[in-house]
C-alpha cells in the first residue's frame, strides 16, 4: 500500500450483497470520548462470493487511527450500506465512462469501474486519478487487468501526467489539437490550454459520461468542465456526515435554489448541475 494508506477487509456478506458503487458504510471505532460519531467510508472492492468488502483509508484523525490499528480478526462496528442516490451507469450505448477521482474519492470509482465492466466487458471505461506525488496514488487496484484505462496525474510529475486531473480530463471532453492524446508521464499537458471545443461528441470524440469523487475543489473543477461541455456528470459529495442515515441534517449540501439537501440520503451522488458549487 502507499504510505499511510490502509485497506480493511470486512467479513460482511450482507453488505457485500447489497452495496452498489457510491454506497458507504459508517464506522464506529473505539476512540473513547475523543470522537463520538461514526465516520463514513466508501465501499471499495467487493467480493460477493467470499462475502468480503474492502474499504481504503488513510489516517486523518481518531477514527481512522483506531481503524489502522485493528488486528486481523478484530471486530469493527459498521452501519451500511448507506446512501440514497448512488452512481448510475450512463445508459447511452457506446458512451465513454470517464471516472475522475482524487484522494479517498478513488475507492468508490474503482467499484464503479468494476461494475461497468461486469455489466458490459466491452464498455469504454477510463479512470483518471490524481495525487500530489506518485506514492499517494492509490485505489486503482486491479482495474488495468479488467481493461480499464488508468491515467495517473501527479502534481510533481513523479508518475503519469504532470498536473491536475482536469489537465488529463480536458482533452477527453474538449480535445486540444496541440496536445497528443494523453502521453503518460511527460508533463506535456499544460494547465493553461485554452478550452476550445464544445462537448466531446461534437469534436469527434465519443460521447462522454463523467463520474467524480474526491476533494471538493477537484470535483468543482471537474463539474465546471462538465457543465461547460454539457457532459453529464455525477458527483459524489464529501460533506461531513454525522449520522449517515438522514436524521441529523448535519450533512447539509447547498443547492442552487438556496436550500439544503442531506448529502447522506439525498445523495451522496448528485448531478453536477444540482449542486451550488
Amino acid at each position, binding site marked *: 500500500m502507499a504510505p499511510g494508506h490502509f485497506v480493511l477487509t470486512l467479513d460482511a456478506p450482507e453488505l457485500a450483497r447489497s452495496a452498489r458503487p457510491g454506497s458507504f458504510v459508517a464506522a*464506529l471505532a473505539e476512540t473513547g*470520548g*475523543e*470522537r*463520538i*460519531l*461514526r465516520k463514513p467510508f466508501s465501499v471499495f472492492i467487493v467480493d460477493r462470493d467470499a462475502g468480503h468488502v474492502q474499504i481504503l483509508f488513510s489516517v486523518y484523525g481518531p477514527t481512522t487511527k483506531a481503524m489502522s490499528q485493528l488486528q486481523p480478526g478484530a471486530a469493527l462496528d459498521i*452501519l451500511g450500506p448507506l446512501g440514497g442516490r448512488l452512481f448510475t451507469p450512463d445508459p447511452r450505448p457506446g458512451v465513454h465512462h470517464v471516472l475522475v477521482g482524487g484522494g479517498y474519492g478513488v475507492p468508490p470509482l474503482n467499484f464503479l469501474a468494476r461494475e461497468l465492466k461486469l455489466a458490459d466487458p466491452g464498455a469504454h471505461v477510463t479512470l483518471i486519478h490524481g495525487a500530489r506525488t506518485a506514492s499517494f496514488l492509490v485505489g486503482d487496484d486491479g482495474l488495468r487487468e479488467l481493461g480499464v484505462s488508468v491515467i495517473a496525474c501527479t502534481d510533481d510529475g513523479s508518475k503519469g501526467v504532470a498536473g491536475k486531473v482536469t489537465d488529463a480530463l480536458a482533452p477527453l471532453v474538449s480535445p486540444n489539437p496541440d496536445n497528443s492524446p494523453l502521453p503518460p508521464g511527460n508533463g506535456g499537458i499544460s494547465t493553461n490550454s485554452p478550452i476550445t471545443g464544445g462537448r466531446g461528441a461534437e469534436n469527434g470524440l465519443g460521447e462522454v459520461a463523467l463520474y467524480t469523487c474526491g476533494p471538493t475543489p477537484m470535483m468543482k473543477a471537474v463539474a465546471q468542465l462538465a457543465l461547460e461541455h454539457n457532459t453529464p456528470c455525477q458527483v459524489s459529495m464529501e*460533506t*461531513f456526515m*454525522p*449520522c449517515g*442515515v*438522514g*436524521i*441529523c*441534517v*448535519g*450533512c*447539509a*449540501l*447547498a443547492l442552487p435554489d*438556496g*436550500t*439544503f439537501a442531506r448529502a447522506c*440520503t439525498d445523495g451522496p451522488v448528485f448531478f453536477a448541475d444540482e449542486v451550488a458549487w
Partner: protein
Amino acid sequence: MKLSVAIGSLTMKNPVTVGSGTFGFGSEVAELVDLEKFGAITVKATTRERRIGNPPTRIVETSSGILNAIGLQNGGIDDYLTNKAPFLRQFTVPIIVNVPGESPDDFAFVARKLTDAGAADAIELNISCPNVSHGLDYATDPTLIAQVVEAVRKVTHLPVLAKLSPNVTDIRPLARAAEDAGADGLSLINTVIGTAIDARKRRFKLANVTGGLSGPAIKPIALLHVYRAASVVHIPIIGMGGIVSATDAIEFLLAGASAVAVGTQNFVDPGVGITIAEGIEKYLAENHFSDVAELVGALET
C-alpha cells in the same frame, strides 16, 4: 413490571423517547429500527413556516460531544401534516411534536393545526433553541415562558411539554413558571450553548458561530438541571442530555425525571433507545422494583 409513564393524557409504554432533532421524523430510520418499541417518538422541530436552516458547517465534534447549529431546518407545519404525519400514523407509537416559535402566536398557531389534524399526541414547546434569534430570550424569562405555555394551553387539549434551556443561571423559576402556566410536563435539557474554533484557519468552525453542545460531555450539567427542576415542580420531566446507556437513563430517573430521551447517540445507533428501555427493565427486575415510577427521584441521601 410496570414500565409505562403518563404525561398528562399521553401514555408512554416505556419511559424512553428520542430527543427532537436527533431522529428526523422517524421515517428515515423506520427500516433500521422498530418504532413501536419506543415509549414515544419525538419528531424534529416543526415551525409555522418552512425554514431552510443554517449553511454548513452545521455540526462539529468536540470532546465527548458535538456542537450543532442546524437552524431548525424543516418544511413547516403544512409539510409536516401532509408529508410526515401520515407515515407516522401508520404506527401506534405516540408522537410528540417539537414546536419552536418566535412569539406566543407562532407556538399557538402550530399547536392548533397539530391538534385539529390529530397529528400529535403531545406538543413539546421548544422554548430554548439556542441557534435562532429570539429563542434564547424566551428561554430565560419566566414571564415569556408563561405566555407561551398559556397561549398554547388555550388552543389544545393535548399534553403540553415545555422544553427548557440549560443556559440560565437557575432553572427553578423557569420550571415553576411553566408548571404554573399549565404545562403538563417539562423536557430538560436542550443543548448547552458553545462554540468551536479552528486554530489553523483562524475561523469559527460553525457557519452560525455558536452552536448547541450535546452528548456525554453535558450529562453532569443535565443531571443537575433535572434534579433542581424536579425539586420544585410536580409535573413529570423528560430528562435528557448525554444519555448513551441504560445506566445513564437510570441516573436521570434517579435525579427526578419520569422518562428520558436519547439524543445525539441516535446518530451512532438509532436503536439505542430500545436497548435502553430493555436495560431499564432489567435493572428494575434485578433490584426488585415493580414499577419504573419507584425509581423516580429515589436517591438515598
